[in-house]
Every structure is written in C-alpha cells, then in structure tokens.
C-alpha cells in the first residue's frame, strides 16, 4: 500500500514538473497562435480579438496560474486550432500510438531478448560478433531511414505491404497488414538496443559465483542459461524494457511521419508548428503519464520476479 502511494505521489510530482516545463517551453518559441489560425491576411483587429478570446493577451504567469487551476479539475483547455478539448483530441489518437508502440516493443522484445541471451551465451564467437555488428547498425541507422528504406523495398518494389501505415476502415486483418511495416521497423531499431543491453546483463550474471557453482555441480548448460541466469538477469532486462518503452514512443513520432500514421506524435508535431499550446501540453502530458505508468508497472513487476525487491 505504501509502495503504491509512493508510486502515485511520484507520478503526481513528475506530471506537475512536466506540465510546468512544457508550459513555459512552448511559450518561449517565437510565433503567435492567432497569426497561425487567421493566416497571412489577418487584420490587426482580428488578431487582437482572437488573442483576447484565447486569453493570450494576459501575462504568461497569469496564463500559467489559470492553466494549473483548470488542470487540477481535469480541464486542460481547448485546441486553439480546432476548438475541441485538447485532452479529448489527444486521447482520440492515443490508441493509434499505443498500438504502434506496444507492437513495436513486442517485436523488439521477441527479437532482442533471445538474441541478447544467445550472444551472451556465445560471447566472442562469430555469431556474437555478427549479431553485435548488426545491432550496432540497427542503433546507428536513424529510424526514419529504416522506415523509408522499408517502404521502398516492401511497398514499392515487392508490394507486400501498403506504404501507408494506417488503413481507412477494413477489418482487423487489414489493420494488421498496415501495421506490419511500421511496427517492424520500430521493433527492429529498438531490438538492437535491447539485444545489446540484455547481452551485458546476462554476461554479468553468467560471471557470478552462483552460476559457477551450478556449472560445477553439473547442471545442464541449457538450464544454467535459460533458468538460473535468465531469472537473475530479468530485473535489469525489465528495466531495459521500461527505458526502451519511452524510447520507442519517441521513435514512434518519426515512424508516424514516415508512414503517414495518425498518432500522438504527429499530433504534437502539428500542434507545435501551429503554436497550439493546449494541445502540445496535453500531448506531452499523456506521453509522460504513459511512460511513468509503464515504468511504475514494471517496478511492481520487479517484486514478482525478485521477491527481495518487494520487501524493500
């Protein structure tokens, strides 16, 4: 119970910090939302009227105070471009982003963890070298480059998958078909990280005394690696997955742009260029909460993996 409360208060503090930083950060960018909305031909009177309607004529600290007061009641303001509640708009595109991030992470875990274990297992062998080199490439190539290359290969040349990462209507299969490329690209780039980090975590555990003892006692190697070592390495591996979740959400923004996929990333990008303050704030907030939540869940999961941690 204490643990849960501590997690919740951490969440609250993090969220408050993020909201504050974002609030002032977006207001530091030059440019005027009213100008953006009314376009090149806007008259000075029209701009002034709109600024007043949006509350932008107030000093920034007053705007901040009002924002925090409203945010406490769950009101995160309305998008200045569309006039719709900002949180509602962001939550509308949350499923798209969540599906992409989780699908990408699933691909990354399925590829990355076994490869990490395998390479730790065979440290120094040619397969270890090869996989590590490939992983290095995976980390070095920007995700948008991988995305464009995969569109050219799998969509234009081979015509296996659509170039657009989102379908309009259609059944579950159609949606999955559209998801394969974006999730695959995201997964592969994140998998490279997970492989490398899993490998180091496993190597550390494999060098521990308990493993030596197990080996000395003649425990089969398969059991040593997949049961004893993996179980001990799971905590750092889970931590890695938590960290890469934030990273995969970040990459998802680029993936969304390359594959013309709707989502929080592309929405925030659009909102920043439109100086849509409320939308940027709501978007960053939702992303931050998602990352903190996933990490909190993983924190709780550590307890299940390693009982020593739950008693702390």
């Amino acid at each position, binding site marked *: 119970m204490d643990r849960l409360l501590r997690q919740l208060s951490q969440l609250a503090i993090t969220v408050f910090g993020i909201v504050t930083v974002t609030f002032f950060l977006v207001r530091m960018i030059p440019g005027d939302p009213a100008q953006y909305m009314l376009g090149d031909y806007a008259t000075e009177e029209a701009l002034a009227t709109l600024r007043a309607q949006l509350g932008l004529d107030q000093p920034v600290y007053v705007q901040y105070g009002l924002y925090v007061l409203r945010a406490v009641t769950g009101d995160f303001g309305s998008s200045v471009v569309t*006039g719709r509640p900002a949180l509602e708009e962001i939550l509308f595109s949350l499923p798209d982003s969540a599906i992409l991030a989780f699908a990408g992470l699933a691909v990354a875990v399925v590829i990355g963890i076994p490869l990490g274990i395998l390479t730790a297992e*065979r440290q120094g062998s040619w397969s270890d070298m090869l996989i590590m080199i490939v992983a290095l490439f995976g980390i070095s190539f920007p995700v948008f480059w991988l995305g464009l290359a995969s569109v050219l290969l799998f*969509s234009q040349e081979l015509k*296996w998958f659509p170039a657009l990462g989102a379908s309009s209507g259609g059944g579950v299969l159609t949606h999955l078909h559209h998801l394969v490329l974006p999730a695959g690209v995201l997964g592969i780039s994140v998998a490279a990280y997970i492989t490398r980090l899993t490998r180091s975590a496993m190597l550390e555990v494999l060098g521990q005394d308990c493993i030596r003892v197990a080996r000395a006692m003649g425990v089969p190697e398969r059991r040593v690696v997949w049961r004893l070592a993996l179980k001990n390495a799971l905590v750092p591996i889970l931590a890695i997955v938590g960290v890469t979740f934030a990273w995969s959400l970040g990459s998802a923004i680029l993936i969304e742009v390359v594959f013309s996929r709707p989502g929080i990333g592309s929405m925030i990008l659009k909102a920043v260029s439109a100086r849509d303050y409320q939308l940027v704030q709501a978007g960053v907030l939702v992303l931050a909460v998602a990352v903190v939540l996933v990490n909190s869940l993983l924190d709780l999961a550590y307890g299940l993996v390693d009982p020593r941690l739950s008693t702390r």
Partner: protein
Amino acid sequence: MDGINRKERAGRIERSGVNRRQFGTLLAAGALVAGSGWPLPASAAPPVLRVRIGSDIGNLDPARIFQIENQTVATQIFNGLVKYDEATNAIVPDLATGWEISGDGTVYSFALRGGVTWHKGFGPFTSDDVKFSFERVLDPQTGSSYSGQLASIKSIETPSPDRVVITLKEPNSGFLHKVSAFNQGWIVSRKALGEIGDKAFALNPIGTGPFVFQNWAPGREVKLSANKDYFAGAPKVEEVQFRVIKDETAAAIALENGEVDIFFGLQQPEVIQRLKGGGLVTVLDRDANHTINLVLNTSIKPLGDVRVRQAIYHAINRKALIDGFFKGTKTEASGFLTSSFQEFTDQVPLFPYDPAKAKALLKEAGVGSFSLDLVAPGANPYDKIVVPIASDLAAVGIDAKIKVLERGAYLQARNKGTVPTCVTGVVGAPDPDSPILSLFAKSSFPPGLNTAHYEGIEDMIAAARQAQGDAARKEVYGKIQAKVMGDVPVIPLYADHLFIAHTKKVSGFVQNSLFTMSAYPVSLLEA
C-alpha cells in the same frame, strides 16, 4: 571464462538445437507471409474517391478559413453566388443564376437558384443566408481575415427569398471576384450556424455543395458523402476521403500502389519527375494564380534606392534557379501576376540576368559592398532557393546573409516590418486586387503583407475600382503592373505551377488554378 568452456557450451547448444529451431521457425513464418503474397486489399465496391492532402485540416468555416487543405475540402461542401470556371477562370453562375449591375456600378442584383437545400436537413437556401454570410464576415466580432475583401459593401437587401441586392459604397469593378466561391465568397446557412454554434461549425460545416461533411479523424482523414440532392445533379462517386499523407515520396508510392486516387499538393520536383517517368499515373500541371517574390524593404537603406533594387533584380539568375533547382517545374515570371489572370500583361520593365549591369547600377547609386539579410521561412522550397540567390548576390559584391526562420518566427519578423527582405507569394483567386492590395497598398503596411513599404500606386488602385468594362480594367491593371515592376518593390522569382497526379482510374478530373480541386466532376473507372 576459458576457451574450452566456451567451446563446450557452444557444442551443447548446437546439440540441443533450440536456437536453430527458433531461427528456423522464424524464417519459415517469414517465407510463408512472403510466399502467400498477402495482396494489397482491393478497393471496396461503392465508388470511393481517395485524395491525398499534405497536412491535416483545422477549420472549414469560410469566414476564418485558411490553408489549401481546408480550402480544398471546403470546395466540395460550399457554393458561392458565382464561381470561377475551373478551366478558364471566367466568372460563371453558381447559387445565383444571373445578375444585373446598375449603370453607375454600385448596385448588384442577383437572381438566386430555387429549390436548393442545405445539407443535413437545414432547410431551403434563401437570400437571407447570403445576407447573413456576408454580414457575418463584415462583423468585427467574427474576426474574419476577409472582412477587407467585402469592405466595399454598403448594404444588403433581400426583397424576396430568391433575390439579393447588394449596394456598394463606391463602384468596384472587381466585386464579382469577392463573391466568388472561395473563402469569404462561400455561403453559409443562418439556421445551421445558429444551431451548431460559431465554434463547432468550423469542423461541422453545413453547405449546399455536392458533398456533405461526414466526419474528421484528426491526423488521419476527412470523409464526405455524396449529396444526392445537389442542384446540378448527384456526384458520380459515393464518398470522398481526404487522407493526410505528409511525405510526398510516401504519397507517390501510395498513388502508384493504388492506395489513393488523387495526389493533391504535388510540389517536390524530384517526385514530379519520378511520377512522370513512371508512366503509371497521369500528372497534370497548370499555371498557378501566384508568383513567389523576393520582397525588398524600401524603407531600409540602401534598398530605398530604386537602382539598388534593380541591380539586385539583374544580379539574380532566375533561369538557373528554375532549371537547376526546380528542374523546370516552375516558369519564369515577368511580373507579380501570372498568365492565369485575365488582366495579366507582359508589357512591363524587365531586368534580365546581367551581373555586369548590376555592378554598374550599384556603382551609379554610390553603394559599395553592403550586407543584406535574405529572410526566408524554414519550409521547402523557400529555405533552399535563398542559397543560389545569395551566391548570385555575392558575385556582384553584395554580402547576402541567409536567415531561415521557423514559420512562426518568420511571420512574427515579417509582421514587424523590419526585415530587409522576405519571400512572399499571395495564393488565391485570380482576382488581381488580391496580390495588388496585399503586396503594394499602403493599407497593407506591416503587419500586412506590404513588407516592401511600397506606396507608388495609391492613385492607380482607386482608378482600377472605377474602371468599368473589361478593356478599361485591362488598361489600368496593365499600368499598375508596369509601374510596380519598374519600381521593383518585389522581384518575381518564379511563377508557380500547380501539379496534381491521379491514377488511370480517375476520369473527368479538371485541374483549376486556385490551388484547390473539385471532386464533383470525377468518376472512377473499373480497374
């Protein structure tokens, strides 16, 4: 760990074969997916037209509309009293079937089409809606950017539901342009606005056009359905989907793969060349209604001297820019209007590329080497075209410094009016008043678009309003073009070209010069 141990372990794994099996399974699954072909799904039975747009929509309210994507979607939903013929730009009837203009040019009486109804059951269209629409744009409370366009209106009377009479403060020979189906010219429903509300209307628009707004999925698409009761007959497709695809390369692949039918907003020279070369789709192009100009701020030294401005004009190799950077996808402009305007003339002073003459003019003006900021928005192609321009200017001794600003910062800097140069194009209807007033009238001094602070044609602007008849208009607008181009407050870098590509399935499409498109005449052939 020692070598023997490692080898031993490796041997055990080999024997266990677990990893090989895992790899094998993965490979087999991959091959299965690949081998089965998993074909791209064919388009569904009811004819749905899918159009690529490069950016999401945000506001479809004609009083506040802005940006080509919004305007393109609105084109399907709304009508005006009159409209531009898509092919010729001549003004033709739309919601008005005819009009009479009083002898002194101040009273416009429009006969309205009968039996026109608003979308979604908002009742019949009447003259009161026309009155409401224009008065709404004029009302300062609305905060419309287009109130200036209708500023010549003195009063609007509605003697009957099918007649509207508009009286002007003074003759305005270009008035029909102002009430053409575009931006402030689009007519909205009084009843719908009253019930839906001013704010919600922006993304829940009610019009009389060939397509009815259905829904908008942010970042994804806008769906419109056919208006079966459209006064000119039901459209030939059941639904139009505007799909947001930002990247042009991705859009080109989607078009060639048949994932979209029309590629709207095609601009990148490489993508245009690629689509043309591929031969899988049809690429249309047409002169746009706008030029892209380098604006020279005459209130800043030494740009106040006309010889310096002319020298800069001579120094820029515009042909190299068009052939090299744009790969011939733009055309050279003689002035700030393009040939798609009825009032266009090429009888204007020209300043062809001539670095020697540029140097001589600078010398004559007594200006040695000076430094000049080239200010451009950080958007393709403006952030790139300033590079060759800077090198051209360097060749004649002008130390040009490139200042690329993010769009918001750029607008802010330009609005202040203190930037020495900027890049501006006035995109819109083929109404010559639009670029002339925006770029060169005193009333458009910053924060307006007259960043040049030019005031050489104030008397001519008044004369243009009075000119009745096509010949008189052509004459006075010809004089304006000649005067401005001699004074060089702006250098027309190029005349823009509009490109649209569509698949071979699309039939009946007509490209306009407004930077919008109409889905109404389009039908889809069986693949």
